[in-house]
């Protein structure tokens, strides 16, 4: 095991895949000569050259489309979009082409395309730099959407995504690139499907993903220490397809559910998990599930307002108590 940062894990996955397969290439704004906004491609330009580590113009929709086109004829591009807020500009190519071409062609064309993109609220970046978009991506048939909460998964998910024949969107987080964690030294592949129980418990299940996993784990520790409540924490990790069976299995054991997301509630991950619960385990529930989520506002610049707009471990703790009536 080696301890490394989230960005280093992403860099390692790039490097291994690019070394292995000459048709893997990386593309994005400032990823080459400048080394990448989040350092996730540092050194690759020098190592693999400008044919395979491409600094693009600020043309999100079309370079995404170029990646999609290359993928359709056998390349394996990894396209970095600097912030998920800019991925809106690439939605046409992603949604109308990448997601649909395999199906539309009756399975005759594959699109092994990878988009990496950080989402979420960092520090006072304002409304146009703080949104999340998983609710949009996960609503599109044909895409796979995954989101790592640790350096281990940042590595393993990118490895799997590059090898996968479907288009995969990997949602990272602006304030997680320097997060440290253990990453096994041997090559491995994190599944693009299925959730993972990262803390077993009997009293309730807390579903989380990406940054909210940290809030969930912090709250679970406090619940255990202060109240003797044992929360199970499930990292959803793959948001599309969502692991229906895995979600239901945990709640059949614990009978109570909480979903924590950094995003606003409407039409989101929490809504989807709650829909699955009411379809799959309505009679197993001992209490109405709760969603912990951002307030329904564009993220404000002011520090206090920003803090108030997004959830935290304290809110998860309070919601867990409420669900258990303690």
């Amino acid at each position, binding site marked *: 095991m080696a301890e490394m940062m989230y960005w280093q894990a992403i860099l390692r996955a790039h490097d291994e895949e690019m070394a292995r397969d000459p048709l893997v290439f990386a593309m994005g704004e400032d990823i080459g000569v400048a080394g990448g906004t989040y350092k996730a491609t540092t050194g690759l330009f020098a190592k693999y050259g400008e044919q395979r580590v491409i600094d693009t113009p600020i043309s999100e929709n079309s370079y995404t489309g170029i990646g999609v086109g290359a993928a359709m004829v056998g390349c394996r591009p990894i396209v970095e979009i600097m912030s998920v807020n800019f991925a809106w500009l690439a939605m046409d190519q992603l949604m109308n082409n990448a997601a649909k071409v395999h199906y539309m062609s009756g399975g005759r064309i594959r699109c092994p395309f990878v988009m990496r993109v950080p989402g979420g609220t960092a520090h006072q970046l304002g*409304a146009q730099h703080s949104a999340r978009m998983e609710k949009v991506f996960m609503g599109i048939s044909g895409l796979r959407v995954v989101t790592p909460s640790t350096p281990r998964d940042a590595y393993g998910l990118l490895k799997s995504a590059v090898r996968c024949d479907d288009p995969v969107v990997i949602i990272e987080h602006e304030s997680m690139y320097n997060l440290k964690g253990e990453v096994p030294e041997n090559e491995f592949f994190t599944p693009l499907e299925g959730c993972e129980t990262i803390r077993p418990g009997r009293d309730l299940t807390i579903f989380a993903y990406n940054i909210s996993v940290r809030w969930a784990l912090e709250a679970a520790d406090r619940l255990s220490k202060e109240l003797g409540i044992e929360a199970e924490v499930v990292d959803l990790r793959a948001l599309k397809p969502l692991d229906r069976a895995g979600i239901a299995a945990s709640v059949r054991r614990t009978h109570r559910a909480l979903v924590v997301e950094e995003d606003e509630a409407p039409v989101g991950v929490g809504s989807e998990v709650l829909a699955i619960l009411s379809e799959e385990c309505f009679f197993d529930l001992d209490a109405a599930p709760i969603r912990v989520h951002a307030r329904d506002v564009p993220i404000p610049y002011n520090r206090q307002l920003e803090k108030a707009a997004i959830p935290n471990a304290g809110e998860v703790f309070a919601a867990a108590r409420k669900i258990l009536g303690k």
Partner: protein
Amino acid sequence: MDATDQKRLLREMLFARRFEERCAEAYQERQIGGFLHLYPGQEACAIGVLEKARPGHDYVITGYRDHIHAIKSGMDPKAAMAELYGKETGCSRGRGGSMHLFDPDSRFMGGYALVGGPFPLAAGFAKAIQMKGGDEISICFLGDGANNQGTFHETMNMASLWQLPVLFVCENNLYGIGTAIERATVETSQYLRVAPYRIAASQCDGQDIDVVMSEAEKAVTHVREKRQPYFLELMTYRLRGHSMSDSGAYRSREEVEQWARRDPISIYRTRLEAANILSEEDFQKMDLDIQNEIENEIVRFALESPEPRVEDLERYVYADGGPKPWLK
């Protein structure tokens, strides 16, 4: 232009420089957060062009490097600084931040974070002007990098097709963050890129404010009188990093030094001193005055202003008090 105006212009440019430098300090002091994109090196662009337009009457829009465009458009610098400090008295009530200054009272229609986003908005302002029949024009300031977005080409086509009174000002500072223009764009002369759209265009030095003003005067007159778009490219350079987190590794120190010798403030100052309009002493006094004003009025106002109340988090999501005809 008489000596008083010339001195005022120099003061405006120096004020812009000191304002931005003070922002950098406040960022280091953690009074300002988020992304902060500063303007030193490019002062002659916004100030020169808007000097020849009618701020407060014409509509102005730009990207995230927006402080000086806002102030020259008529925004109170106190409201700008308070916004950077995230205060309720800020021009966007602390909700916007550095990249999102707004002042509709002076027709400064905002700073926007997404590269290329303002092109169609600027054409939209022009469309509204056309429909309402005024003599205003719409002015859109963006960088060289923005011209690789689809919105650039789509908007140029429609602006010309519909003869919209909009002036596009391209501040070509040779980089989009760390990517040099020739590594991102085939035709590095931006003004040539609008030729297929049959938009009148020109290019000039963006460091000498006299040159900027004379070219801007032609451009503004063209748009105002002919009610047609115009594209003006200003060759300029940013002397600081793209934002506060920029290592600068993508360009050489010699290159920066070479451009520092064409600092718009020194160029103009030297000219005024040579013409005996301004003495060395006058300049020092002007500088001191500015720094006092920034410290004692502007920064103090920002510091002493109240934060927005957390209870007001959800205010401004929707327009309060707007008509709801379905309620009767």
